[in-house]
């Protein structure tokens, strides 16, 4: 039996495997279903990867290559084109490789299967079903594979970091961007970056705007946009639509393993050291929530490795947990359970909201006990705000669920 199998060879999975080897685990295997390990950054040609974990700034492909090289260097066994398709009755992994079909088992398993953008059907956008409807992930790979006919004029749905990344990809591929549409009152990226991109490429940002229909056959011809303030609709001519962000964890193996999912993140519920609800099964990276930057995902993988090692050394302890529940407009918190005082990755919790919030108090309560209260300067939808972990020791491990909510509104 292998010591540890890591499912998924993106930043979180590779960082986890590398850390496991560094901490002396002899036999660490990464199973990756793609032709090459490295995960999503392989297709992100722009700079900006590695600041938090590798202390340098790389392009996505360089970052991915670096992780693969590091993994090989420390003796991680990476299986490419190796897909875990499910579980056997006794909890082994069912694995398909180019040459074989096998059941693999390990003393510990780490799920690091990442997340994906919701495509058009999942968003229930009506209209025709033409060519030219993409996600950022598909767009970046089309450009990478030098596909002909990416398009000539695009509308981008969403205004998060990744949406601006899609914009840059389109512009570099020679596609004019007609505009970016977001249902929110403003964009969600960094102010400087978004302003710079907007000015440089003269791309209008349509706020409080929802895409209500796609028209055209066989290729996109136009989209219908509705202004949520006025209710008025208008048509915008384009031959390409890119749906960005709206991430969902790729949680199939988590579900088929019978893990409890967090209702907010839709990823497996994990405690602060990334234990799932099943003994011996850990989860890390953007499977836990969609989506953090690659370096944050990698640090989550590293954190899981420490937890795995600790568990392998004291093989009998898989404690009860208290879930953490977010109240609207707060969307989710990650990690989302507490089973002791050990700190979460990067010593903080990530908190998301569905609305822009500024200067509001946050309360963390367990039943009628206040565990923590504080103020967050600003919360931007689609970006994580940090909550401290200082309150963990106050949690009653046998108590009810922990609530995270806005403090009673004060004037």
């Amino acid at each position, binding site marked *: 039996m292998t010591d540890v199998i890591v499912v998924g060879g993106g930043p979180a999975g590779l960082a986890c495997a590398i850390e496991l080897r560094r901490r002396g685990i002899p036999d660490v295997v990464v199973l990756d*279903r*793609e032709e090459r390990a490295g995960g999503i950054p392989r297709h992100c040609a722009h700079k900006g990867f590695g600041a938090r974990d590798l202390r340098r700034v790389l392009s996505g492909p360089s970052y991915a290559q670096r992780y693969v090289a590091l993994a090989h260097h420390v003796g991680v066994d990476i299986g490419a*084109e190796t*897909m875990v*398709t499910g579980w056997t009755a006794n909890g082994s992994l069912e694995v*398909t*490789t*180019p*040459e*074989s*079909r096998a059941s693999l088992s390990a003393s510990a398993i780490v799920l690091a299967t990442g997340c*994906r*953008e*919701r*495509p*058009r*059907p*999942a968003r*229930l956008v*009506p*209209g*025709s*079903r033409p*060519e030219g409807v*993409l*996600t950022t*992930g*598909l767009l970046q*790979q*089309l450009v*990478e*594979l030098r*596909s002909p006919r990416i398009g000539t004029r695009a509308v981008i749905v969403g205004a998060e970091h990744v949406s601006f990344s899609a914009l840059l990809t389109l512009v570099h591929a020679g596609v004019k961007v007609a505009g970016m549409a977001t249902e929110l009152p403003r964009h969600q990226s960094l102010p400087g970056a978004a302003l710079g991109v907007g000015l440089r490429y003269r791309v209008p940002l349509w706020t409080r705007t929802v895409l*209500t*229909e796609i*028209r055209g*056959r066989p290729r996109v011809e136009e989209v219908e946009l509705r202004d949520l303030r006025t209710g008025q609709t208008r048509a915008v001519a384009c031959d390409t639509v890119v749906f960005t962000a709206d991430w*969902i964890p*790729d949680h*199939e193996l988590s*579900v*088929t393993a019978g893990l409890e999912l967090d209702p907010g993140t839709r990823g497996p519920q994990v405690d602060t050291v990334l234990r799932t609800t099943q003994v011996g099964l850990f989860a890390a990276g953007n499977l836990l929530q969609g989506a953090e930057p690659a370096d944050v995902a990698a640090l989550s993988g590293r954190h899981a490795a420490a937890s795995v090692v600790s568990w392998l050394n004291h093989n009998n302890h898989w404690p009860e947990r208290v879930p953490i529940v977010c109240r609207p407009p707060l969307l989710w918190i990650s990690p989302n359970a507490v089973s002791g005082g050990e700190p979460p990755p990067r010593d903080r919790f990530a908190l998301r909201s569905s609305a822009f919030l500024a200067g509001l108090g946050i309360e963390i309560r367990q039943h009628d006990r206040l565990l923590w209260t504080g103020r967050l300067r600003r919360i931007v939808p689609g970006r994580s705000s940090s909550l401290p972990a200082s309150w963990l020791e106050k949690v009653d491990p046998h108590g009810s669920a922990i609530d995270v909510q806005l403090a009673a509104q004060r004037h």
Partner: protein
Amino acid sequence: MGAGVVGAAVARELSRFHLSCTLLEAGPDIGAGTSKANTALLHTGFDATPGTLEARLVRRGHELLSAYAPQAGIPLARIGALLVAWTPEQRAAFPRIVERAHANGDAAIREVGVEELYRREPHLGPGAHGALDVPDEGIVCPFTTPLAYATEAVLNGCELRRGVRVIGVEHRGDGGFELHTTLGPIITRFFVNAAGLYSDELDRLAGHDGFTITPRRGELIVYDKLARPLLNHIVLAVPTGTTKGVLVSPTVYGNILVGPTAQDVPWKDDTSSTAEGLAYLRAESKRILPQLAQHEVTAVYVGLRAATEHTDYQLTIHAAEGYTCIGGIRSTGLSASLAIAEHVRTELGAAGLELRAKESPATVRMPNIGELSPRPYEQAGRIVCFCERVTLAEIEAALGSTIPPVDLDGLRRRTRVLMGRCQGFYCGARVAALLREGTA
């Protein structure tokens, strides 16, 4: 003319005899029109109007396809349907439905009580008043079926031309026809119109005017495979005046499908979904199978059913001319296809077509793309499409098959590639590149 499920079935049937046969298709591929966008059910015909041609052919087609599918590698399973009453009025309609089923030769239908219903479908929404059990209703792969027919026809010498439209039909003095097509003239003794939504227009080109197609739009939602354990049977609604209502059914690919809506539309080429239709289907999903609301939608698709002003098939054999019109097949073409073909062949024989059976006609074994039996990835393979677990070998086999795909949709129907929850996020670019290389 027309390589949907009906035209392909007729071509297959005729190709088993010593005669020269050509299958023409206006679209880019086999089964790329109405045949690709339906509820993918194998009907028993229990609820058809007794005495109609449709009732007879659906029943016979059910029998023929049930026997053909396992030999030809078509995913098919008779999982049974439960027709659920949600009001006392619907429950009161049961005796009439049972009587009709008996008249159609379905002896297996029986009523089940509320307790048994919820035992067999524990996730069904609250408020059911009972159900009718129709054990022989089934699910079938709507993509493989017409492809199997057409492939078998081609292997038996039938000539297939895709992307060709008939623009004129001329009756020749010596009997037979000269078809004016976008590929030039074609001379034939017998001519079969299986043009689906366009069968009325072709019928008029042939000098008849028997019916008018009014396309009926049906929108459908496909839920994520993770929802599949929620459902064991096809859950049918009690039919109302105009439609059979919204049904919820497993698919042979392991998803759950909800639909169709029913709306008459004045066009034949626009398969757009609507905000109202999708909202309605979401509400129906939640009512019938509440837990579906927590699941992701994998796909939305829209079919146009070839409805007419008549209540039965518009299947007419003009024996003296040698012209056969198969119109108004609506939503039962998949179930009835083999029986329609058998019927047409018999009638053409009576009309003077010499039918000398081939001693050992070719048979087909299509690649399995369903979840009802093992798939290639369960042996080994380079999995390209992760969501649907499609291997490189399957894609290459499809690209090199007897009737290769010409576009991504065609590759999708042959392999399931890109049909899954990510809709190409992971593999879309690679699959497009494989198609480009494979068709270059």
